[in-house]
């Protein structure tokens, strides 16, 4: 047990930070908010050359087979720099394919991901925004050696930039023993797909994607027929915890800006950072961020070690949802009026942290998942020991 970063982990985080500080200015971040695909191809190419898309992919697919905690450290820096790159959706989807795909599927998709040629995303949410299998109404109907997909997906990240999309579809009615979902990997430009960009608080790349009679070869089904939900659940868990690290990276620099500001901004004849009201607020901000990091990295570490981590993921996300936007609001408060100025950068983080706290599961959803594990499963609960989970 040693929960601090080791030398190699420190190096991964430091080099990602150094790279993004050099390559990703806030001017670029602002520019990409207005961009139709939302990322600069040159920056993305450099990120993929450094191996970020292949970090946790196996060596046979051009990856480096590193632990997920390393990817978490990189995502934390991506959040800190607000780097406008489609790394989150690509990494998460590629790792689901590596875990659940056939050899042929992996070989056809993953080397392109490692090389930076293929951008991936996934589509789960529909009109009902909860992360439950019964919310999926999009259908996939067998037709010879194809499936025909019809439905409407919401909040699809990086769709406009993507080459392929992993779509959760209903292939059977939900029953007590089976969620009735199957997953299909579809070319983003396939006939019958249309999309509209959503205007979000973060001004990031999220789309509504409409599937009208989209034909997909059966060979593109990921996992077995009606076996899609457990794969999607794992995907969502990884996506959620990596989003947490991204939120935490963004929140920490936001807090650091407030702390630095308080050391130089003078009022009543002294730096405002000498007032205890400001000091105690800043102390609480840092304690919240530290707590979130410990929760998120424990979840990633458990995934790396093949342990169940659903409860840990939900712990991290519910905590980040509650604490991180509050930290950013405190930072706004310490900055005063300047924080509300469009030309001052602080709002770039505030808007993202606030928006990201609403993605991939609300505090209520994640806490209900924890409550279910704590209260509805048999057995005595001991803090620090695994909580029983359902599969």
């Amino acid at each position: 047990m040693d929960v601090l970063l080791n030398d190699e982990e420190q190096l991964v985080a430091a080099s990602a930070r150094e790279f993004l500080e050099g390559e990703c200015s806030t001017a670029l971040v602002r520019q990409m908010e207005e961009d139709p695909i939302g990322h600069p191809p040159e920056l993305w190419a450099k990120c993929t050359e450094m191996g970020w898309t292949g970090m946790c992919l196996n060596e046979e697919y051009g990856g480096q087979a590193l632990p997920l905690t390393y990817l978490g450290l990189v995502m934390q820096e991506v959040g800190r720099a607000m780097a406008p790159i489609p790394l989150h959706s690509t990494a998460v989807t590629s790792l689901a394919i590596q875990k659940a795909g056939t050899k042929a599927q992996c070989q056809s998709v993953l080397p392109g991901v490692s090389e930076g040629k293929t951008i991936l995303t996934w589509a789960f949410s529909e009109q009902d925004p909860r992360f439950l299998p019964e919310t999926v109404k999009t259908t996939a109907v067998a037709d010879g050696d194809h499936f025909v997909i019809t439905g409407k997906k919401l909040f699809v990240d990086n769709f406009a930039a993507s080459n392929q999309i992993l779509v959760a579809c209903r292939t059977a009615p939900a029953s007590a023993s089976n969620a009735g979902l199957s997953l299909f990997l579809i070319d983003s430009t396939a006939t019958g797909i249309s999309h509209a960009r959503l205007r979000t608080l973060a001004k990031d790349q999220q789309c509504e994607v409409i599937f009208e009679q989209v034909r997909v070869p059966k060979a593109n089904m990921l996992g077995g027929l009606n076996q899609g939900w457990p794969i999607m659940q794992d995907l969502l868990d990884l996506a959620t915890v990596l989003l947490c690290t991204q939120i935490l990276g963004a929140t920490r620099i936001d807090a650091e800006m407030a702390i630095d500001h308080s050391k130089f901004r003078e009022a009543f004849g002294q730096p405002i950072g000498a007032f205890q009201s400001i000091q105690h607020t800043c102390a609480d901000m840092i304690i919240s961020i530290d707590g979130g990091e410990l929760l998120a990295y424990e979840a990633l570490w458990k995934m790396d070690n093949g342990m169940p981590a659903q409860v840990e993921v939900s712990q991290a996300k519910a905590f980040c949802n509650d604490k991180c936007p509050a930290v950013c609001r405190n930072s706004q408060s310490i900055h005063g009026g300047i924080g509300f100025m469009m030309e001052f950068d602080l709002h770039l983080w505030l808007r993202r942290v606030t928006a990201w706290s609403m993605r991939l599961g609300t505090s209520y959803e994640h806490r209900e998942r924890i409550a279910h594990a704590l209260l509805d499963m048999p057995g005595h609960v001991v803090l620090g020991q695994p909580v029983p989970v359902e599969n």
Partner: protein
Amino acid sequence: MDFGHTLEQTQLRRDVLDFIRTHMTPEVYAELDATEEAHEAGKGERLSNKRGPLVAALYQKIDDRGWLGYSYPKEYGGADGDRVSQNIIEEEFQRAGLPISLVGSGAPAIMAVGTEQQKQHYLPKLIKMEFSFALGFTEPHAGADLAALRCRAIRDGDHFAINGQKMYTTSAHHATHMYLMARTDPDASRHDGISIFLFPMDTPGLTVRPLWTIQNNPRAPRGTTYGDARTNEVFFENVRIHESCLLGRENQGWRVGSMGLNLDRVGAARYLRSVRRDEDIVNWVKANDFGGYAPKDNPAIRDKIAELWIEAQVCRLMTMRSMSIVERGGNFTYEGSAEKVWSPEHGVRTTEAITQMLGSYGTLLNGSPHAVEKGVFAHNTMGAFQSGINHGSVQIMRDQVAKRGLEMPSMRRAKAAAK
């Protein structure tokens, strides 16, 4: 990053739990309770650290297994083990209601700055729980601002004469020794004229008087984990002690004392104190109802329980972080203080939330008809907040996070600079 335990550590936890199941019998608990009651009933009479025959035999068995002072050197009665393992042992005994932790014992400071003779004299007996210190820090006019302390130690050849008063000296009625912070140089700056002394409680001139707290009336069930019914004030009238009683060098006591307190703020005992009720309420709610109304089916309660559980995990993880720092041989910049803000305040939030889950049942004390879990939750509401006050209040801890961790400016310096 490694959030796991080794196979040996996992096995050690199993062994400790097996031992507890076998040896922590109802008779042992009864004897522990009887001894504590006798201590409290002492009303001014100073009692030694004595214990009943069953408990004495139990400590011997634990020591035979090498579990006392596990991470201390063998030459001082320890087992040369690692701190993580020691924490596992302390955690499980704390859960079982038998304190064996050396946190708050004075042992870490003696280990760090004690003379060879002091180490040999104190450590083996502290580890065997035969010696214990009453911590003489707080005074009537020096609590949070400890450096304002006035208790005087005046040098007289190779002796010191001590005069003054200490307050809230928690275990003074049963400790064997005093761990005293006193002023040795009133002309030096506040922090520079302080020294620490170790000496027996039965030294002539030392008087202990009881102070009765709002807790433990009636007596709380074992494991309530907060506060005692009795604390004390201690008076020193020309208490003469030899200079060999100095811990660390003369006038260097502030450094030694702060170091001891820092080490005191972390560890299994402190974090479990803040999270025990989380475990209790989860396990109670999942197995009980009030005549057909099951709180576990109430969505608001489910949501609150999950929120508290997450916070409790952060307590656990912050303790792991502190241990990782210590295990690497490093010092805290702010991490110990952060833990000492988060965990006690969490304990209060939990305790208060539980009262709103139990309603009127939450008011019932130990021994009352219809008391829930022997009234543990009711007793806790009068005790939880104490943890945010003792050993440095949460406000003082936030100051330390801001000043040491975030390097924020000091008000005094800012004012001086403005002039």
